[in-house]
């Protein structure tokens, strides 16, 4: 079976879980001898070698379209980025860029041989629709996040919403990364639940750092890792930090990631008088990412709305206990964790302190969590995708 896949970010050029999921899924598919032609926006020259190496010489072909599309980019920060780069080869607005990407997809669709089209999130949906129109092949759209998750339901961009809806309506099947996301799709986009298949993500963490003792620390480390945006609840993290510090003076709070709320969070920490206890690590990748996990005593994901959430799985695979938002897809598939409501600062801070204080709790969560996460690998979601392909091809 040959799959024409439209993605937009891929490690190491990724800003979030979408790239990680795309990477894992294509790798899983290739192990099932599914031939994937992956269409991606262009990447800086110096990074190409690395990601080709990651893909290795298996069944995945890479196609590039020159664009600077970033999945989590809003229209306003797109124009900021454009100024920094060579604007000559890029379009002037984000939506113009999407249309250009979709146009290029037509040409690729004509040239390529494939049985099915698989698109990842809204920016690729138009491309998928175009490819379907040209080759009359079935279209599967994979929803990793919706506009409702990104905005927390406030200030939903109408244009994005319509692109998402159009994609889902034109698709022969919609893949949702969780039941949580399936509900969002049926409730806000009016898609029939019969058309939606839930395929939970997985994790395959390649541990590069062996020697744990290399990381020496005096303080207990509480880790937040994700984009510093409304969706991820970094504000709840710092409010909880304040409360924890009243009881655990030795705790340090590391925020790894970047995003539009970063200045606000920095100011907030200063205002609460805990600026010296909240450390900003920036966006981490590869070994740095792994080091951040290995340093942590507990990982917290206080997301307001998390379609899936791969980072807790990564933390667990590094033996780190996790405290995660109930408003997440990942909470449907893991049990060796502590669940919280993102707005419940008392509960979040109480659980952070408990993990820092009660060693048997920390050890049990870490050991059982590691055991649990070992069962996850990308062959499972890949297999489920193959089943979806077979289903739509038979229909």
């Amino acid at each position, binding site marked *: 079976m040959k799959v024409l896949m439209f993605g937009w970010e891929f490690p190491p050029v990724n800003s979030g879980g979408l790239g990680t999921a795309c990477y894992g899924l294509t790798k899983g598919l290739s192990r099932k001898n599914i031939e994937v032609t992956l269409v991606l926006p262009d990447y800086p020259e110096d990074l190409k070698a690395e990601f080709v190496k990651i893909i290795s010489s298996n069944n995945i072909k890479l196609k590039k379209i020159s664009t600077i599309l970033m999945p989590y980019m809003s229209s306003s920060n797109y124009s900021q980025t454009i100024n920094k780069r060579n604007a000559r080869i890029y379009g002037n607005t984000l939506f113009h860029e999407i249309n250009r990407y979709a146009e290029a997809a037509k040409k690729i669709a004509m040239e390529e041989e494939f049985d099915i089209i698989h698109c990842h999130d809204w920016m690729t949906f138009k491309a998928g629709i175009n490819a379907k129109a040209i080759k009359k092949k079935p279209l599967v759209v994979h929803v990793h996040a919706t506009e409702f998750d990104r905005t927390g339901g406030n200030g939903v961009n109408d244009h994005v919403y319509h692109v998402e809806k159009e994609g889902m309506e034109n698709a022969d099947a919609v893949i949702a990364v969780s039941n949580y996301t399936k509900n969002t799709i049926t409730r806000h986009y009016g898609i029939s639940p019969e058309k939606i298949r839930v395929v939970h993500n997985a994790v395959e963490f390649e541990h590069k750092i062996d020697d744990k003792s290399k990381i020496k620390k005096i303080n207990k480390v509480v880790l937040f890792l994700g984009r510093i945006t409304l969706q991820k609840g970094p504000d709840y993290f710092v409010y909880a930090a304040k409360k924890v510090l009243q*009881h655990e003076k030795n705790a340090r709070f590391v925020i790894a990631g970047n995003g539009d709320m970063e200045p606000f969070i920095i100011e907030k920490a200063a205002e609460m008088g805990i600026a010296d206890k909240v450390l900003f690590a920036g966006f981490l990748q590869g070994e740095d990412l792994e080091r951040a996990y290995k340093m942590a005593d507990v990982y917290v994901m206080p997301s307001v709305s998390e379609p899936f959430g791969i980072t807790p799985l990564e933390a667990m695979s590094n033996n780190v206990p996790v405290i995660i938002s109930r408003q997440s897809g990942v909470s449907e598939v893991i*049990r*060796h964790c*502590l*669940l919280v409501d993102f707005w419940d600062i*008392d*509960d979040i801070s*109480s*659980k952070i*302190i*408990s993990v820092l*204080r*009660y*060693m*048997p*709790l920390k*050890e*049990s*969560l870490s050991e*059982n969590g590691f055991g*649990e996460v070992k069962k996850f690998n990308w062959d499972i979601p890949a297999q489920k995708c193959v089943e979806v392909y077979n289903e739509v091809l038979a229909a």
Partner: protein
Amino acid sequence: MVSICFYFQVHQPFRLRKYSIFDIGSSNDYFDDEKNRQVMQKVAKKCYLPANKAVLDLINETDGKFRVSYSITGMALEQFGLYAPEVLDSFKQLAKTKCIEFLDETYHHSLSFLYSKEEFKEQVKMHNRAIKNLFSFSPKIFRNTELIYNNELANFVEKLGYKGILAEGADHILQWKSPNFIYKPKTAKNIKLLLKNYRLSDDIAFRFSEKSWKEFPLTAPKFASWVNAINGNGNVANLFMDYETFGEHQWEDKGIFSFLRHLPHEILKHPDNDFLTLSEAISRYKAVGELDVHNLISWADVERDLSAWLGNKMQQEAIKEIYMMETAVKNSKDNELLDKWRKLQISDHFYYMCTKWFNDGDVHKYFNPYDSPYESFIAFMNIINDMKMRVNADLKTSSMVQ
């Protein structure tokens, strides 16, 4: 001759509330009164009241031939008093028939035998007193929490004056022997050992509503025929189970009460069958041999061991913390504190922390008031820390007074 010995376990824990780390030092309100009331009243309606009614009717219908033994924990007795006094009344009514025997156990349904013999003795005494006061009955048979048992326990309990003790008829201790006889614990003098026939007991307690079971549906004549088959190769059929089997674990609409109401009549159709309380059984039948149980066994799960309560680090830490406080709590002379400390020994608290079956999300979750074993450990440890502060404060005050 086969004597059927029914023994029903009656227990409800005092469940803890979600006691937060921020409550430490500011609240000694540890128990979820609302939840405890709800559960007690629900189980009273679904199980205790209708089951007691059925047992009373059966005793009357059979002119006292139907006989039953009960072990009711102090925790259940207290909660009957608080939330369902009519249940207590119905047990008193049963006691008056003289066809009922009450057993002793630790008042707090605790694992104290494993951690403090002194505390164990006190709790057994408390239970004995409670049964005497409520039912004017002096128990002579002992059952330990969750049928946890070994030689050492049998010796200890014998010294406390008991004539009989209960254990699981686990395959690995019986080997070729049958649970359908009375035994003597290897190291004890006279105390007799009654073993649960787990196959027959579990047919009712666990498999009754199980559609995939090849014997489904279980009818009273069918079960009676299995009991009859013991004739000639056994003296007793020890049917030991949680009383909540009737109406709570197995539902009324699946026919469990109708089964209960028919079974004694079916069994009594065979002229060689009768019903006995456990004391009657050990006075009628001699011990046929000795049983050597060195390692602890219980009636739980396939393992028949203690891993459901003490299998992981959290459980071990939590229980260790409790018994480390024993001297301080007792020295404080603070009765309210002592009562709370003892209620923290209820074995259910440790059971909720079990991670053994957590992956499969099986039946155990049904009995767990917490979202996860981790949550139950957190609440428990927070409470322990609060209690530690209070004990220390008490001790300081009392030393200042002196």
